[in-house]
């Protein structure tokens, strides 16, 4: 009797379930044929979004936030979204073998670009995860003897936040200051080293101001004191020559979507000789030698590998072109308006990142007026806040100048026409805002604004 009752309830729930699932499948089918997600705001005569109407798609000058996917990269990826969908860890059939082969080829392309061995590359979800594994993983592994980390004030948020997390666990962190040019002082680094220093983490190319830290010199100091050296090279990979041997890096964070590859994939370089060990953040099936469990996203990895392959081939060509475009942009703006300041070192910087401050202009108004140019005031992570960037504050940039910074990111696909248009629009907007500004009027009359005693309200 009981079994009969069970069977009937089971049948009931089963029919209910199938009815529900058939309904659901119908609704997803309906969603698939309905207009896609971007149609509501895209009209034939322009785009309306967030209350802003633009005639055409803005020109993209925010290459530090992310880069467009190179068609050569997409071409390599697509087969792995279609027929070649195997799990690279499947050892029993062709699907797995071909995915595994593609993943290993990609791994060797990535290793090749940074002068490493493919065995030293661990795939992660991106540079943020790689930075987390590096900072927390190393310190957790060596926590009995090493209690101190050295990093800089201008690191990416994910390194700073990982350090803050370690601080809460009782580790000590030294945040090295940087000079007005954004470069750390090597003597200060040397002085900050303690016997229990377990990690030195310095990013290669800064994401906001584009300055290049003296990697080889830092690497030498790390070697001298036998301290693991981690560097966040997400903004450096494929743009400046990166060599783990020359830099003496023990760990290096890499990202796919900064080098015209797909988003959601990155890598961690982990030195084998001398071996550096980390405690994994994600535990599971033991993929990537147990350091990063989880099925490898074969299409993304193939894309990342292809992006590295293209980057290696195109680095000299891209660099020459991007440098010329940067000069064009900088000279074009400086010729037409005064009070333009480059944030960070002029000599030691990656050409594709031009961070400028415009005096006597309010930054948000400037960005709002530049709706046809996709630029940012700093990093994309903090672009929602009105606070001036902590990187610029670390440089000692005045509050008013830090508020008016704009980061122009030039990349592989940027054209001369886009740069000229950006100059024209920026100049027009800055002039318009200055015309309205009483401050600028006072400066033109020869009043030194810094001497003014503003009345307190």
């Amino acid at each position, binding site marked *: 009797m009981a079994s009969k009752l069970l069977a009937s309830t089971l049948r009931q729930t089963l029919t209910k379930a199938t009815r529900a699932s058939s309904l659901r499948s119908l609704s997803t089918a309906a969603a698939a044929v309905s207009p896609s997600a971007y149609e509501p705001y895209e009209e034939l005569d322009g785009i309306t979004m967030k209350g802003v109407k*633009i005639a055409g798609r803005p*020109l993209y000058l925010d290459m530090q936030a992310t880069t467009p996917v190179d068609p050569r990269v997409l071409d390599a990826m697509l087969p792995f979204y279609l027929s070649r969908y195997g799990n690279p860890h499947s050892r029993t059939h062709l699907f797995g073998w071909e995915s595994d082969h593609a993943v290993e080829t990609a791994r060797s392309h990535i290793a090749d670009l940074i002068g490493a061995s493919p065995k030293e590359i661990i795939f992660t979800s991106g540079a943020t995860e790689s930075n987390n594994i590096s900072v927390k993983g190393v310190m957790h592994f060596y926590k009995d003897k090493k209690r101190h980390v050295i990093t800089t004030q201008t690191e990416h948020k994910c390194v700073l936040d990982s350090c803050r997390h370690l601080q809460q666990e009782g580790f000590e962190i030294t945040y090295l200051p940087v000079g007005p040019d954004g470069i750390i002082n090597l003597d200060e680094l040397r002085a900050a080293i303690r016997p229990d220093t377990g990690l030195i983490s310095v990013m290669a190319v800064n994401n906001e101001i584009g300055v290049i830290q003296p990697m080889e010199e830092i690497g030498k100091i790390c070697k001298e004191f036998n301290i693991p050296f981690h560097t966040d090279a997400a903004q450096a990979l494929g743009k400046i020559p990166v060599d783990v041997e020359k830099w003496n890096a023990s760990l290096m964070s890499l990202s796919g979507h900064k080098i015209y590859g797909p988003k959601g994939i990155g890598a961690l370089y982990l030195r084998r000789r001398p071996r550096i060990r980390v405690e994994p953040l994600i535990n599971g099936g033991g993929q990537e030698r147990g350091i990063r469990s989880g099925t490898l996203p074969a299409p993304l990895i193939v894309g990342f590998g292809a992006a590295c392959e293209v980057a290696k081939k195109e680095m000299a060509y891209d660099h020459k072109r991007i440098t010329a475009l940067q000069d064009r942009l900088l000279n074009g703006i400086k010729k037409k308006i005064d009070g333009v300041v480059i944030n960070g070192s002029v000599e030691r910087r990656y050409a594709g990142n031009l961070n400028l401050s415009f005096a006597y202009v309010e930054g948000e108004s400037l960005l709002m007026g530049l709706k046809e140019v996709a630029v940012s005031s700093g990093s994309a992570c903090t672009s929602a806040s009105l606070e001036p960037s902590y990187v610029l504050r670390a440089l000692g940039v005045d509050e008013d100048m830090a508020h008016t910074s704009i980061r122009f990111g030039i990349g592989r*696909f*940027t054209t001369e026409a886009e740069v000229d248009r950006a100059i024209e629009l920026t100049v027009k907007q800055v002039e318009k805002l200055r015309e309205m500004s009483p401050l600028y009027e006072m400066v033109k009359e020869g009043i030194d604004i810094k001497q003014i005693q503003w009345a307190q309200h």
Partner: protein
Amino acid sequence: MAPTRAEIMGLYRSLIRAAREFCDYNIREYTMRRTVDGFRKNQKLTDSNSISSAYLEGKNQLAVAKRQAVVYSLYAPKVKSVIELEKLIIH
């Protein structure tokens, strides 16, 4: 065997034609520019082996460009880049 001059010029023309098919402004401009610059740089090649490998490379790039121009056209945004709109008004 090294390709003939006519074959090389044919490849050049095909690449430019394939580049024009890209609906995306930046990709189209890049593909044209990269083709012109690549051929200009390889003009100086004299060794038949390097000419052959450059030709083969170009052939592969042509295949990629042809495929990707189709993919881009399938998902082209309705609205063009502001740079292209500017051009349309002038002409």
